[in-house]
């Protein structure tokens, strides 16, 4: 059952990443990978929310939304490739900015999700 829920979450999360990435790029033409940044920060917020509420949230929901959806919505391989690609193409400050913004943005979003969850489910 857990496997099925993870599969279901991932089957939505991976195409959602692709579609959000496209939508962000279509509205925001830049070398900076705003699309990947957006899904990674969004996914970190959702997972932070979910993990904080884990006491009241069922393991099934964690498998579906956490391991499946958030796991497939966000990506480290793409983030790593983009960082290297920016650096190797001479955009070194953008590569550093991508790292700092993604890590700080992700952590900030995770703590924000955590705060929202503890406020909603004290």
């Amino acid at each position, binding site marked *: 059952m857990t496997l099925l829920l993870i599969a279901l979450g991932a089957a939505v999360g991976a195409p959602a990443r692709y579609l959000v990435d496209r939508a962000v790029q279509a509205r925001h033409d830049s070398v900076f990978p705003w699309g990947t940044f957006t899904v990674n920060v969004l996914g970190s917020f959702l997972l932070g929310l979910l993990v904080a509420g884990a006491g009241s949230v069922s393991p099934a929901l964690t498998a579906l939304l956490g391991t499946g959806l958030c796991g497939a919505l966000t990506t480290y391989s793409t983030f790593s490739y983009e960082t290297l*690609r920016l650096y190797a193409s001479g955009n070194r400050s953008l590569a550093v900015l991508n790292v700092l913004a993604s890590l700080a943005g992700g952590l900030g979003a995770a703590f924000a999700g955590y705060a929202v969850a503890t406020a909603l489910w004290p």
Partner: protein
Amino acid sequence: MTHGQRAATPEHASTAGGDPGGNHPGGPWPATDPDVDLHVPQQRQELSRHPAVLLGSIAAGGVLGALGRYGLSVAMPHPATGFPVATFLVNVSGAFLIGVLMVVVTEMAPAHPLLRPFLGVGVLGGYTTFSTSIVDTQQLVIAGAARTALLYLAGTLVCAVLATLAGTVLARALRSVRGRA
């Protein structure tokens, strides 16, 4: 940034990467994002051409990747204040594989149009996870293991980027060996 500035970047990339780059059938690779980059004409059009096949391939790949990640996390659980080994290995190995894959997709003979969506966006995107890496770090901080959190955050970043570089270099080396044979 303008399109003109962007067009210049792949040449810098090829100098830095030691690769001529221009041998790709579509000319120098103009993309930063390996998932989808709207600066690549084929990728701009791929969604409207075959939406169901494309999104279906991404979903199928994502399922395989996520199940692989889950399998590793079950095989290698970590205590609340311990180093999250499974997610670290998942992200570093996935970063290595995207390096290999993107050399195949962008620098070798024209790849099948679903190869990048299935393997790159789907399998590797579903396998690796940014959110778990971040929330693992957060949980370590909350559990009072700030030093492990920092080591994990920085370690994953450095090892993943180096792994992507290693994957790229290795794939290019294999390609040139095969090219000479």
